């Protein structure tokens, strides 16, 4: 049964809100119940930003996943420090290792270290780091179809989507490929 509770976090400007919206939209297109909830406040570019995404077979109650995330997609160090503890035991943390050198302390979660900025640069635009992270997540969760994610991309980005699509699909695929290469197995507790 699908009940994904995903926390996406990073600096404002890294695209964590868009990343979460893409996931939410894709879940909706796949016929799931979904919610997206942003952190909001006196935010600014460079400040921390995060959003909660719930994708479920059942109607979603609380849209907030700060205490019981099944997965966290973390794009910068302050977010790792803030949300490492938010993931449930047996959950997964995707870390942008381009910006985060610190090891994840948790021993009871799966950790995927993805050099998202480097891989995005390879694709042609470092700004696509969020899409690399999304690609990594999609490869692991297997709850979403690539078609739905691409369709979601067109919905979320509107007219801009067309000329950006190839780059972003490449970024998704780089992220997916990186998962297999960089998996860190949980150590015995």
């Amino acid at each position, binding site marked *: 049964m699908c009940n994904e509770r995903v926390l996406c976090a990073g600096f404002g400007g890294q695209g964590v809100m868009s990343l979460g*919206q893409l996931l*939410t*939209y894709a879940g*909706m297109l796949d016929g799931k*119940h*979904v*919610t*997206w*909830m*942003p952190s*909001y*406040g*006196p935010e600014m570019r460079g400040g921390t930003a995060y959003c909660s995404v719930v994708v479920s077979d059942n*109607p*979603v*109650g*609380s*849209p*907030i996943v700060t*205490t*019981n995330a099944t997965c966290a997609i973390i794009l910068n160090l302050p977010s790792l420090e803030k949300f490492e503890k938010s993931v449930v035991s047996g959950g997964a943390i995707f870390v942008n290792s381009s910006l985060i050198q610190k090891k994840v302390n948790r021993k009871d979660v799966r950790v995927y270290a993805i050099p998202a900025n480097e891989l995005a640069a390879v694709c042609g635009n470092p700004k696509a780091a969020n899409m690399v992270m999304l690609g990594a997540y999609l490869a692991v969760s297997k709850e979403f179809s690539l078609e739905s994610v691409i369709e979601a991309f067109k*919905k979320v980005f509107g007219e801009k989507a067309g000329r950006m699509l190839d780059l972003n699909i490449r970024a998704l695929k780089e992220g997916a490929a990186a998962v297999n290469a960089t998996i860190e197995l949980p150590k015995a507790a």
Partner: protein
Amino acid sequence: MTMTLMKGNEALALAAIRGGCTHFFGYPITPQNEIPEFLARELPKIGGVFIQAESEIGAVNMLYGAAAVGCRVMTSSSSPGLALMQEGISLLAAAEMPCVIVNVMRGGPGIGGIQPSQADYFQMTRGGGNGDYRVPALAPATVQESVSMMVQAFEMADCYRTPVFIVSDGMLGQMMEPVEFDNIELKEPPEKEWKLTGHGNVRKPKTIKTLMLDPARLEARNFELQEKFQKIAAAECSWEEYLIDDAVLVFTAYGSTARIARNAVDQLREEGFAAGLIRPRTLWPFPDKPFQQLASRCQTVLCVEMSCGQMVDDVRLAVNGKLPVAFYGRCGGMIPSPEELVAKAKNIMKGGRQ
């Protein structure tokens, strides 16, 4: 059916247009700014009017003027902004001006904060304006319900000649959920024979006013209004029940908090505890009936709010001493987790302190 993903605030704004709204007056405040942002862009395209007033006081009085000439009108604001509008709301209720007023609640009192809260239940159901008046208050719990209630609010406003509140909060306003606008069917609005459109020297002038210095006339006027409020109370109570038939403990919560309480009910059920939920969809008129009809199995009603305890007063009135009513609240922008509610419920069911 075309589903689209929208923020609660944007959905409210689009639903207002679909509901026939042509005029918006307001002043910016977080966390409801997506509503005026959307309407500033979209209303002029349909020949409507968007005005950013000089203040909330200006906005609510522009509402009065535009309603008086027969337009479908609305404003939206958040808690301290609604506080500023209270005098105008009393005037609107007294003059029986149809309009919709959205409150996307944030933490208070005072200027407070900008995170989600439900601490305006008293403000929404008891009012801060003077005099004997009531305003219907609709409390959506999903983005889709924000849409249906927005349309319903305009129809109620015209049907009863009254302001109607939409009681949302920062969580519901900011979150995105799938929503569709396909099934909106608009009723033909009633003829507004009272509206002021100029007599053109061909008929007697009409007036809309609330000053009545003759006490006997003012009392009669009050009784007229009360009759209308009783009619609304009899016809418009609305609520949702979830698993209450065999429930030993029944949660009650409205709006976004009801979503969290529903999670708590599911968790408790999984662990073998018989919990249920009553979710008022109208705050005024308050749905007494589901509380009065609770089965004898029910031992406690647990009211959960993002406030220090406001709706719980109405729950106690509805239960009328027949059952213990417990309360759990978070406030100031803090949002309760399902786990907190589960722990509170278990504590009660074990005979813990209520």
